């Protein structure tokens, strides 16, 4: 059936009129904060207690915006006659967010969970040099890192928790065995 002439024109008018009666979708950003999705990539936080200065992040960074300085410290042998141990100490850790392209490779590659995404995004500066966030600032961002989103209802338990539970169970079993062993002789004494 051929459409009625002008029905397209009327449809166009109807669409705009309907849109006018609906709530507009504008996000009033500076007045109200946006609702960011989980895992938003705002800024990178450094949990420096976990950092071992392995340099993987700095080497994997595609635009080389991570600067790391460190020195080695020698720890005296733990036991007499033992070997001295050397340890890396972090001197400087800086990310230049004027270069960073928010790919997140550094966070993926960190084997010690020292880097995290934070959803904070309001760190614009008037001087580009200020965008190089040094170690203390990166540490401060850690406080804004949200808890990881909950797993799906039927998901497998996270590996860390499985491992931790296994260890805890083993310890509990050993303790129970020890307690049993400690109480058993007493019983025997009572019986005799």
């Amino acid at each position, binding site marked *: 059936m051929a459409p009625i002439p002008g029905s397209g024109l009327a449809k*166009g*008018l109807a669409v*705009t*009129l309907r*849109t*006018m009666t609906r709530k*507009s*979708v*504008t996000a009033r950003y500076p007045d109200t904060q946006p609702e960011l999705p989980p895992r938003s990539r705002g800024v990178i936080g450094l949990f420096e207690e976990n950092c071992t200065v392995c340099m993987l992040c700095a080497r994997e960074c595609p635009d080389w915006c991570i600067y790391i300085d460190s020195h080695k410290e020698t720890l005296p042998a733990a036991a007499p006659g033992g070997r001295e141990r050397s340890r890396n100490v972090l001197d400087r850790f800086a990310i230049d967010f004027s270069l960073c392209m928010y790919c997140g490779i550094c966070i993926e590659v960190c084997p010690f969970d020292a880097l995290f995404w934070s959803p904070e995004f309001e760190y614009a500066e008037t001087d580009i040099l200020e965008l190089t966030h040094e170690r203390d600032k990166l540490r401060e961002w850690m406080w804004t890192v949200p808890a990881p989103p909950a797993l799906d209802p039927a998901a497998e338990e996270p590996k860390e928790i499985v491992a931790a539970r296994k260890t805890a169970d083993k310890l509990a079993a050993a303790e129970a065995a020890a307690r049993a062993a400690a109480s058993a002789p007493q019983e025997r004494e009572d019986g005799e």
Partner: protein
Amino acid sequence: MNDVLDVAIRLVIVFAAFLLLPLIVGQTEHKVMAHMQGRLGPMYVGGFHGWAQLVADGVKFAQKEDIVPAAADRRIFQLAPAVALLPYLLVLVVIPIGPQEGAVGEVVDAGIFFVLAVMGIGVLGSLMAGWASANKFSLLGGLRTAAQLLAYELPMLLTAASVAMAAGTVSLPGVLNAFEWWWVPWQIVGALVFFVAGLAELQRPPFDMPVADSEIIFGAYTEYTGLRFALFMLAEYAGIVVLCGLTTVLFLGGWHGPFGGDDVGWLWTLLKTAVLAFVVIWLRVSYPRLREDQLQKLAWTVLIPLALAQIALTGIVKVVIQ
């Protein structure tokens, strides 16, 4: 002395309406267009939903440098915005808003003639601007304006003539005095043609070929800056007010309303004008721009035959009822 005072007061009131109404229409356009597109529009200026946005725009325009291109025809270039704007002020003087003695700036016996002739001058402003700018895009815009003017003046005139035939007078208050409610269905085709042709003459979307910014930058206004550009903008919105007012007076019965009597006649006129202005904005939001050839085709193959048919219908009905 009293006459002078009377004329002065009338002129001041018309002038105030001339400055105020286009601003209101412009602000409405900001907000209506925004909401029709799911946006909010201006929200900050003036505190409450950006009501002072256009005032701020005016201040901004006033601060800008007034540039005249070196190759431009200086005097024509500088004169063009005034030529575009002033005719609408003149038309506003003769539009009656109420049945009372003083509810019109000046009663002109040949009102329809006067209005159509003066509105034609407004388009000259665009032509002058297009020619005097010494810019290819401006010239293209000016020529498109000329083509559009030629095509759309005719249906506008024919439909206005139809109303004049029906009323037996060319005076605007005279038309309204003769008005009966059944004129609306009788003249409805003419009203549509008049309104559409008026839109095209104002170069409002979807008939904004002469200023098509994606093709010829801003047509005849490309080289304008600051206040002169603002005057062109103001002319466009004053044109909306005038067109809607005229359509109201000629086709929708002006101050006649279903209830309220003559005392609130001016309210009916303003209400009808406002509704029409809303339709103008609505059409802008809903439809894409017509191509130049589609524009001409619409005028010559649709509007003009319809206008002629309306005149024939008016004539037949007129003869039958006499």
